[in-house]
C-alpha cells in the first residue's frame, strides 16, 4: 500500500512542476512591470504605467518621445488588425464552409484538399512574393494590406473547422427547413448559422488573437511607425531599451496582454477544440 502512495505523490509533484513552468515567465513579467527598478524586480510601483495618461512614451523627454508613436494610436492599429481579421475570416469561411459541407459541386474535393495544403504551408515561405505583390498593388505600408494577407492565411483553418461543425448537423433539419419554406439562403442564415455558433465563436476568437499578436507581417510590410501595432512597438523598445529600462517594456507588454488574457480565460475550451480540429484536418 505504501508503495502506491509514493508513486502517486511523485506523480503529483511532477504535475505541480509542469503546472508552474509556463506560469513562471508570466509571473516574472507581472513583477517586472510593477518594479521600482528599471532592470531588476524590486518593490512595487505604478510609475511604469505613466504612458497611460497621455499615450506618450517618455513624456518627460520630448526628443525620445518623438521617436515613438502614441500608445493609443498603436492600440487602435492593433485592434483594427485583430477585428478586421476576425470579421473577414468569419464571414468568408462561414459561407464557404457551408457550401463545401452540403453541396456536391465539381471540384469540391480539389478545393477542400487545396485548403488543407494551404493550411499546412507556413506563411513564411510566401513573404517574398507577397511583398512584391503588395508593392505592385500599392498596399505596402498599409494596415489594409496586412489585414488582407493575415485573413488569407487564417482562412483555410476557418473553412476546415466550420465545415466540421456543419457536417455534424443532421440533414433532416436542412431538408425540413427547405420544405418549410425557406430559400436556400434562408436555410443558411436562419437555421445553419445559429446552429454553428460555437464554431463561429471559436474561429472569431482565434482570428482575433492571431491578428492581435501578429508580428512578422507588420515587421515586413509596414515601415512608418504611425502604422505600427503593439508587437512592433514592444520589439523596437526592447532592442533599444533592453538593458536600460526593461520595466517599461514589461509594463507595455502587460497592457498588450490584457485582451489576450481576458479572451483566453473566456474561450480556452474553444481554443483547445480548435487546436485539435486544426491539426486533424
Amino acid at each position, binding site marked *: 500500500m505504501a508503495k502506491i502512495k509514493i508513486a502517486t505523490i511523485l506523480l503529483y509533484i511532477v*504535475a505541480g512542476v509542469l503546472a508552474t513552468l*509556463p506560469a513562471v515567465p*508570466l509571473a516574472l513579467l507581472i513583477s517586472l512591470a510593477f518594479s521600482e527598478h528599471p532592470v531588476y524586480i524590486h518593490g512595487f510601483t505604478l510609475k511604469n504605467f505613466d504612458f497611460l495618461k497621455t499615450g506618450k512614451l517618455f513624456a518627460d523627454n520630448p526628443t525620445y518621445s518623438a521617436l515613438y508613436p502614441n500608445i493609443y494610436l498603436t492600440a487602435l492599429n492593433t485592434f483594427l488588425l485583430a477585428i478586421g481579421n476576425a470579421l473577414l475570416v468569419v464571414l468568408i469561411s462561414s459561407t464557404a464552409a457551408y457550401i463545401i459541407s452540403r453541396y456536391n459541386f465539381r471540384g469540391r474535393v480539389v478545393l477542400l*484538399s487545396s485548403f488543407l495544403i494551404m493550411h*499546412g504551408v507556413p506563411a*513564411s515561405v510566401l513573404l517574398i512574393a507577397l511583398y512584391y505583390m503588395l508593392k505592385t498593388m500599392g498596399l505596402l505600408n498599409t494596415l489594409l494590406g496586412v489585414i488582407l494577407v493575415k485573413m488569407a492565411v487564417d482562412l483555410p483553418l476557418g473553412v476546415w473547422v466550420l465545415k466540421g461543425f456543419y457536417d455534424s448537423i443532421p440533414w433532416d433539419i436542412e431538408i425540413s427547413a427547405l420544405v418549410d419554406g425557406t430559400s436556400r439562403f434562408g436555410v443558411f442564415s436562419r437555421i445553419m448559422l445559429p446552429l454553428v455558433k460555437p464554431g463561429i465563436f471559436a474561429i472569431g476568437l482565434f482570428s482575433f488573437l492571431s491578428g492581435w499578436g501578429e508580428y512578422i507581417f507588420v515587421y515586413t510590410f509596414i515601415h512608418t511607425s504611425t502604422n505600427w501595432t503593439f508587437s512592433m512597438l514592444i520589439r523596437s523598445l526592447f532592442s533599444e531599451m533592453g538593458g536600460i529600462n526593461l520595466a517599461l517594456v514589461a509594463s507595455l507588454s502587460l497592457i498588450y496582454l490584457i485582451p489576450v488574457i481576458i479572451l483566453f480565460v473566456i474561450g480556452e475550451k474553444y*481554443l*483547445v477544440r480548435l487546436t485539435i480540429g486544426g491539426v486533424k484536418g
Partner: protein
Amino acid sequence: MYIPRRIYKKIFLSAMLLPSIVVASIFLAVPAALTLAISLTGLDYRFTWTWIGLRNYERLFRDPAFQLIVRATLIYVAGTLAFNTGVGLLIALITTHIRKSLGSFIRALWLLPRVLPSVVWAVLMMWIFSPMPTGFLNTVIKSLGGAPIPWTFKYYWPFLFIVNGFIGSSLSAIIFSSAIESIPPDYIIAAKVDGASSFTIIRKIVLPMIKWHIAFFVAYNTLSLLASFEYILLTLDGGPGYYSTEVMILHAYHLAFGQYMVAMNYGYAASIVTILFIIGLILSIIYWRIFRLKRLMLEARLE
C-alpha cells in the same frame, strides 16, 4: 421576381463560395507560384525582372554559407521536434493520470505561451536567459554568490529549443492527451486485472494505441518547423556570431528584408524558399500516402 431554379442555385453557390476562392488564390496560391518565378530572376532593389534561369541556385550551392544554413536547419528541426514530441508526451501522460480537472487546467496553462503574442514571449525569454548580469537567471545566480552564465552565447541551441518548445509542446500535449483519453477503458481495466503495473500499461497499451497520433504530429511538425523562424528572428536573429542559428528560411528572410547591403536580394532569397517548397512537397506526398488523408473528405448531399 421569379428566378429560375438553376440560375438561382448558381448565383447562390457562387456568392457563398467565390470570396474564399478569390482570396485564397490571390494571397496564397499566386504567391506560391510567384516565388518560384522570382527565384528564376535577378529581382532585387531595382525591382526589374531579369530572367537568369538557374543561376541563383548555382550561386546558392557554391555559397559557403549554404552548408551552415542547412546544418542549422537540421539541428533546429530535429531538436525542436524532439522537445515538442517528448515534452508533449510527458505532459499528456501525466495530465491524463491525475484528476481530470487538474489535468485540463495544466494543459490550459501550457497553452498560454502559444496564445501570447510572439514578441512578448521572445522578450521574456531573452530577459530570463540573458547572458548579461541583468538577465533574470543571472541575477538569481549572482544573489546566490555565483558568476553570471553566458546562456545565449554558449547554449544557444538549448535556448532555442526551450523557446520554441514551449510553443510546440502544448499542441502535441493536447493531441496526445485527447488520443489517450479516447482509448476504451476496457483495455486498461483488462490489463490491470491481469496484473500489469502502470508503467507496463503505458508502454504496452497506451503508447502503441496512440502511435498514429504521434506519427501524425511528427509529420505535421517537421513540415511547419522547416519554415518556422519567427522566434529565432525575435531572439537570436541567426547568431550569436556568424550564422550559428541561421536556418534556411531565416537566411532567405535576411537576404530579402534584412538591413544590410546584401538585402533586397529577392531573386536569390526566393531560390532558398523554393528549395524548401520542394522539400516540403516531397514530404507531404509521402505523408499523404502514409496517412491516406482522403478519408477525411465527407460526402455532400444537397443538390
